[in-house]
């Protein structure tokens, strides 16, 4: 099980890293989502991997128990990364609509000054 979880985290992280380093906003958003999945599984496993154990201390017998704290941490991390991804998608969309391409880098058209450049680009798009 350890091998499976570890390689799962590794593959997710590697895929996420690759996508984050892409030039366009959409793959980058997907990459950050994959990274957040990877880190969620990683946090989950930081309380050691166990199956079939009670989630809290059992006061009637000396039993092993699953650590409940990582589960709370994962829940917080999921909520935050979910909200952050939504914000990121909105900003990426706004940036795409303002500048007519979804590249993450600042393009010469952006640098010329927002309103004028995007106006020209939109005219060009209409002509096509």
């Amino acid at each position, binding site marked *: 099980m350890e091998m499976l979880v570890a390689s799962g985290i590794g593959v997710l992280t590697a895929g996420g890293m690759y996508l984050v380093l892409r030039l366009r906003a959409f793959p980058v958003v997907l990459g*950050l989502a994959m*990274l957040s999945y990877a880190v969620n599984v990683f946090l989950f496993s930081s309380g050691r991997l166990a199956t079939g154990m009670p989630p809290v201390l059992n006061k009637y017998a000396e039993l092993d128990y699953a650590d409940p704290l990582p589960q709370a941490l994962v829940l917080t991390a999921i909520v*935050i990364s979910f909200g952050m991804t939504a914000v990121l998608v909105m900003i990426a969309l706004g940036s795409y609509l*303002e500048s007519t391409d979804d590249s993450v880098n*600042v393009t010469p058209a952006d640098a010329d000054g927002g309103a004028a450049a995007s106006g020209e680009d939109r005219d060009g798009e209409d002509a096509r």
Partner: protein
Amino acid sequence: MNHWIVVPVLLPALVAPLLAWVMRFDITLARVTSMAGTVAVLAVTLGLFVLSLDGEVRVYRLGDWEPPFGIVLVLDQLSAMLLLLTAILGFLVLLHVIATGWDARGRHFHALFQFQLMGIFGAFLTGDAFNLFVFFEVLLIASYGLMLHGGGAMRLKAGLQYVIMNLAGSTLFLFALGTIYATTGTLNLADMALKVREIPLEEAALVRVAAMLLMIVFAVKAALFPVQFWLVGTYSNAPAPVAALFAIMTKVGAYSILRVYTITFGPDVEATGTMPGDWLFWGALVTTAIGGVGVLGARGLMPLLSFAVIGSMGTLLLAISAMTPAAAVAAMYYLLHSTFAAAALFLLADLVVTRRGSDTLDARGITAQNGLFAALFFAAAIGMAGMPPLSGFLGKLLVLDTIRTLDHWSWGWTAILVGSLLTIVGFARAGSALFWKPTALPPGEPDPARKRVLIVDDDTDTASTTREVAIGRAGPMALAPAMGAVAMLALLAVFAHPVSIFLEGVADQLFEPAGYLALIPAPATGAGG
């Protein structure tokens, strides 16, 4: 427990939703409420600051859970000082924003501003690593909104990069926290400090990895080389008053490094030893150099100031990297100074850039109050570059004096001194292009810059009335915050002796953390009162 400790977090958290949902259509009411909230929080932080002067470390147990299990807020002198600094800066920035009408150029400025304050206060107060992550996210998500305030293609694109960078940083933060929890079994900073000192050296590899991962996360926040690239694009495309508020955000990173690598992973921990400081030193060295070269090469006022901020962070982190009490005093003095210096310059840049219509460093038509702006810029630039008589000189002198304990101190001296020289040359060039050359242009010629402002504003500015106000002479309300920030530099210089005596007490709490460690983990029940 003293319940006033939680007020700096709670008050903005209560004011912000009110502003967002109840007062969204009434800008006057929103301004009054936001200002009242900020002044109230300023009073509370002042009270907490006075309270902390007795040297006791106060703990606030949220939900009254015992410390290693529950989340705690900790008020020691360092956090009290930074709370007060944030509140003063927030007050100045808010005054500027209201006087110049920036808050009417988009929606929800005041609500985002209050959430931003809440996140920063929380990050300074918390004594729990995961809670630190949560407050980082609070301040970041508010900063995304503030950075995009007013809109525009360039600002959105720069904002996208800023968000991506910080999301990657947050992911790294979670990896670091997971590793720390897996090795020490705790996330409370003080409890962690006790646990990592018990880990034998041969099992310390994972702790070392976690400590350095955390260092990278804080380095992203503090704009340390090689993860400083986000700062220039963000600060120079953000609204200038927001950039002034962001002057404290890089300090959150510096504070976290100072806190975590003295109390938790201090130089006396076998597992990590002097490694964090050693790496920090070389990173800070290059950061200082990048700042100096960037100031010299910048072609716009806002990028120039952004590189000056990077340079000042480099100097600050060089002092922190020495990891001695004396160097920490120098670092904290320089932290106070550089926050106000950066804020003064960005607030002034807003006034100047709005009137010129462009932030490129070239000679344009002379603006209203040219002499006054020139004098203020001169004073703030002297402070930022580190020339006498303002506090920058004393701060850099302290840093130079205290990093002599390092092995490679000559490198640090070279970086700081050459960086300062480049900064002086860069600021002199910028000042003469902005304020001096225009006086030589023939008066009364048509001014292309003004027209461009009108066109751009029609596209992006929702409240067209603010434009008319902004182009004319700056009123006393608009000038007061920038002047106030410069006055703080002068006060820091005049009261350098009492301030440094106070900072020595702060450094003692950091490097002899008996008070911090004793109050948090449970053994003494009922601790903290």
